[in-house]
């Protein structure tokens, strides 16, 4: 079999550039989409949803936050806070805010999921901001060891080593994380509600956040090997228990021991 030695040398083909550009766009766009798949969802809702959200906003939020979310006496500007903020604040019942005080408390949620999604779309439409995290990034299949290490460095000083909560100054507090959904934990990290700092993706990457949530859920779902936990708040509870129940029971025994039999 004769080899074809008359191969023409490689020639430029005009449409090749188009192909390269097209492939490049797919690669970079797809790569970007793949890399940020954990974060961006629902970047913009439909026009109906945004309008629905606007109506809800005007009825429930505008008195404090201004009719265009620009802020007013009762509340700060919501321009740029993103859908994640709304989903967190309204989804945990903190908003609509009621009694004024050093900090908002969780209350019974006042809106349905559709309504929350609508308001979130509306606020997101005002300006770009943190989006509601995807289900992928919220799956608790991260690394709990790494998550625990990050949690202790970045979060435990306010929320306690296992998320039992803690005090801040002047009546503010970092709430307990027990029973808080993965989504809300993520949103709190990314939006920094009230005096909680913002943990942007450069500080704690989406993978880092997933690991932290995995760690928190492990602790929440696994009972302590030692038995009943006394609130996981440490030696104070243990000391109180010793004095009240330990000594109390033993003193009851001593009184019985020293009393005359019938």
């Amino acid at each position, binding site marked *: 079999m004769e080899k074809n030695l008359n191969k023409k040398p490689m020639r430029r083909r005009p449409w090749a550039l188009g192909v390269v550009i097209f492939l490049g766009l797919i690669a970079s766009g797809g790569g970007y989409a793949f890399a940020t798949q954990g974060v961006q969802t629902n970047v913009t809702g439909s026009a109906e949803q945004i309008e629905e959200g606007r109506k809800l906003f005007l009825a429930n939020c505008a008195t404090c936050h201004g009719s265009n979310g620009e802020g007013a006496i009762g509340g700060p500007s919501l321009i740029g806070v993103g859908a994640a903020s709304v989903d967190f604040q309204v989804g945990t019942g903190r908003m609509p805010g009621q009694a004024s005080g050093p900090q908002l408390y969780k209350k019974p949620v006042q809106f349905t999921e559709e309504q929350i999604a609508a308001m979130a779309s509306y606020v997101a439409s005002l300006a770009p901001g943190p989006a509601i995290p995807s289900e992928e990034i919220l799956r608790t299949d991260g690394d709990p060891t790494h998550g625990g*290490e990050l949690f202790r460095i970045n979060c435990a000083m306010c929320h306690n080593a296992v998320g039992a909560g*803690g005090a801040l*100054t002047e009546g503010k507090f970092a709430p307990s994380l027990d029973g808080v959904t993965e989504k809300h934990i993520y949103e709190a990290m990314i939006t920094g509600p009230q005096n909680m*700092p*913002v943990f*942007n993706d450069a500080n704690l990457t989406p993978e880092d956040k997933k690991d932290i949530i995995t760690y928190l859920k492990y602790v929440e779902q*696994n009972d302590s090997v030692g038995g009943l936990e006394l609130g996981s708040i440490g030696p104070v509870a243990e000391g109180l228990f010793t004095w009240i129940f330990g000594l109390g029971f033993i003193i009851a025994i001593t009184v019985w021991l020293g009393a005359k039999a*019938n």
Partner: protein
Amino acid sequence: MSELEQYSAGSRTNIERPIKDPGLEPHRERMTDKSERHARNAERQVALLFGLSVIGAIIAVWGFFAFPIVGGDLTATRNGAFWMGIGIALSLLGIGFGAVHWAKTLMPDAEVSEDRHVARSSDETRAKAVEIIKLADGESGFTRRKLIRRSLYGALAFFPIPAVIIFGDLGPSVGDTLKHTMWRSGTRLTKDPTGIPIKASEVTIGSVFHVIPEGLSELEHHKLEEKAKAAVLLVRVNPSDLKEDPAKAGWSYDGIVAYSKICTHVGCPVALYEQHTHHLLCPCHQSTFDLADHCKVVFGPASRPLPQLPITVDAEGYLVAQSDFLEPVGPSFWDMRK
């Protein structure tokens, strides 16, 4: 009473009581004293309690063998601890309640009186004791021979000294280790614990980064010792909110400030950052520092503001230190200003 009365009663009064001491109350019989049936019941109860104890011990042994720990199975750990503990508790409580119940119901409960004597020895004994001392003194010449006595005191005073000095290598001399940290001019600020450097653009308003100097995460030795001095908090505030002493104006970068994380009270990490108030709270004793005003102390037992780390950016936009801290970090100490 005369034995006790040999001493002065001080300012005690001597009011005559309305009645004399009526003596011990008459003994009140228990059911088990009066009735054989009750006594036998009590006996059975004691035996039952001792029997429960045996059951408890068996449960404890069973608990040990019934829950072998196969790597990663925490329920076995929990169950083993629980059943062994309950078994041991039952075995102990059974004996305890049994023994006490036996004493209360079946052993005599009539009160008995025993005489006391004052601690003081009798005059005779004391005289003999003094005699012995005097004899020993005379025979040894302790009082008489001043030279021996005084040189003995000298020796006794000196011999313990090596016992103290020999502990001299417990720790190296402090030198100026407390006054220097790992930070140098050009050291990059990196994330704790990964060591990834931080760009100024990544530090957005309201965020807080926990920072260690570049190179610390790779240290083989002295990692925690260096971290205990070099840990830093990195925060960006709105430049208009930041009060700046003209002498330290160049220490921040576009509203980004870096402060030592080690509390100047007794050294805990001052890690709580309140985004809106710009306050740093130490969780140990609640010292509060105002980050927008040179971290001066606004509440709590600390006195000294947190030392500021002068920072700037390098050519690639990463945050770097301009130098080491200009004062010692952490708790204040005696010669820290020398």
